[in-house]
């Protein structure tokens, strides 16, 4: 499936705090097609400080709008959190390869914290295919659990672990389960993804991870977002962000 990239100024329809430091912004943008796991580059401010666009995973497409969940981490997202209904941002996208989902496979989603972002659309696509979406979700604090409410609302089976409460991280949950025959899709911090990769390798199951890297252009031009693979450097923005873990060379 090919998608058409555009860049356009769009209206902010809403920008709501979910819990401290975490927001859901809805943009009045209507892309032709979006694959689960694709992302956008947003220009928050018409000035050049911050200079670059910021990459955000697409959370959901609904009538008349695109939803993005984000966490305030720096100057760009801090400015973004102050946007109000009627403000405008410039969106470039949809970008990246996204998750390749096929009818004949059985999927298991594994997310850490904000790594849940791509999985709402993955879950919707799995439901469309007549499958029950299944997610292992790990968070640090209990308040983050509300990030999974939408997926539960869809009818997805969600198993949690809260690190501060249960003393367990999501990879331990994954390790303890029988996942034979599954295709694991994972998104979260790099350390978690590396662990997911090694667990899946040990259990002999295929896994695909969505990587987060610093990025300047988002369209394969600056070559800033290189990822080390067994076949040399690939770019997270156009060759990814989703990679089969068998292709990747991890740092440690």
């Amino acid at each position, binding site marked *: 499936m090919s998608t058409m990239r555009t860049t356009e100024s769009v209206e902010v329809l809403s920008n709501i705090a979910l819990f401290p430091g975490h927001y859901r912004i809805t943009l009045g943008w209507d892309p032709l097609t979006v694959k689960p796991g694709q992302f956008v580059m947003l220009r928050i401010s018409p000035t050049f400080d911050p*200079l*670059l666009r910021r990459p955000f995973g697409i959370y959901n497409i609904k009538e008349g709008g695109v939803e993005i969940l984000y966490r305030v981490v720096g100057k760009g997202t801090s400015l973004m959190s102050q946007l109000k209904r009627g403000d405008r941002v410039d969106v470039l996208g949809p970008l990246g390869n996204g998750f390749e989902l096929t009818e004949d496979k059985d999927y298991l989603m594994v997310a850490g914290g904000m790594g849940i972002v791509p999985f709402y659309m993955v879950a919707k696509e799995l439901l469309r295919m007549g499958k029950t979406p299944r997610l292992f979700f790990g968070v640090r604090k209990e308040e983050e659990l509300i990030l999974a409410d939408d997926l539960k609302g869809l009818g997805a089976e969600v198993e949690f672990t809260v690190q501060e409460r249960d003393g367990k991280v999501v990879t331990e949950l994954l390790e303890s389960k029988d996942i034979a025959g599954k295709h694991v899709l994972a998104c979260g911090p790099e350390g978690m993804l590396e662990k997911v990769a090694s667990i899946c390798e040990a259990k002999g199951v295929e896994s695909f991870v969505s990587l987060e890297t*610093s990025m*300047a252009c988002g369209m394969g031009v600056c070559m800033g977002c290189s990822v080390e693979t067994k076949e040399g450097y690939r770019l997270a923005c156009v060759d990814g962000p989703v990679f089969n873990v068998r292709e990747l060379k991890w740092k440690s």
Partner: protein
Amino acid sequence: MEELNTKVHITPEFVLKNPVMVASGTFGYGLEFTEFMNISQIGAIVVKGLSLKPRAGNPPPRIIETPAGLINAIGLQNIGVEHFVKDKLPELRRLGATVVANIFGERVDEYREVARILDGVEGISAIEVNISCPNVKKGGLKFGQDPASAREVVAAVREATGLPLITKLSPDAPDLKAMIEAVEEAGTDAISLVNTIPAMAIDVEKRRPVLSTVTGGLSGPAIKPIALRLVWQAASVAKVPVIGIGGIMNGRDALEFIIAGARAVQVGTLNLVEPRGAMKVIKEIEAYMRQHRIENIEALTGSLVLPER
């Protein structure tokens, strides 16, 4: 008012339809932008630096944003000159793009060889010789800091091709005047400056450099005033046309460089932020010309009025 004349002459044969070029490394091979604009409307597209063999580039992390700037350490990742000519150039030609090939070598004979491959290839309008990349261990900036080495590179390329030659200079050359004289003597038709400014960033938590290569090259609005000063100085000593580069984000920035003495400009980092940025710069220059009743853009080059002493 008569129709605007935005044409600029880099050499008598190498004429751009407008003074706005896009800088190497910020516009890919040009084809990445076809969804956003008609790329034939850009003055010239300087493609990603080409080497004799494909180059993998540097390990990540390769980029870090700094206030109003971007430090990069890409390391000239590219598909190699032959692959470019075979797989990218035909489409660029079909689309009517004005293409400048930026070339790079680790040794003088590599520059010569890349130039020889490009010589006579239909669809290449000029060569930009990169002797100023701060992100490669061999070649690159080493040639750009020493006039004798720079002369050797440019002379080798000159001997290998009849194409118009632009030599891309570093802001880090200890003696800019000597550098310009050296590349002029070696036969360059124009100079472009500045390449990125060597720079660094440190992660204080880890007490480590942010970039894998420790240092990289700074671009963006942060460098514009420095680049402008260097372009103004270069234009005052150069016999060949000067192409101004460094943090141009809009038409007025471009006009500053032109008034300082640049015949044309290159926009770089802007392309990464606004895919249609170069088109906007062109439109803003045209609006300025209309507003100030300037029919010929070349009349603006070097039109800076200095204070009387």
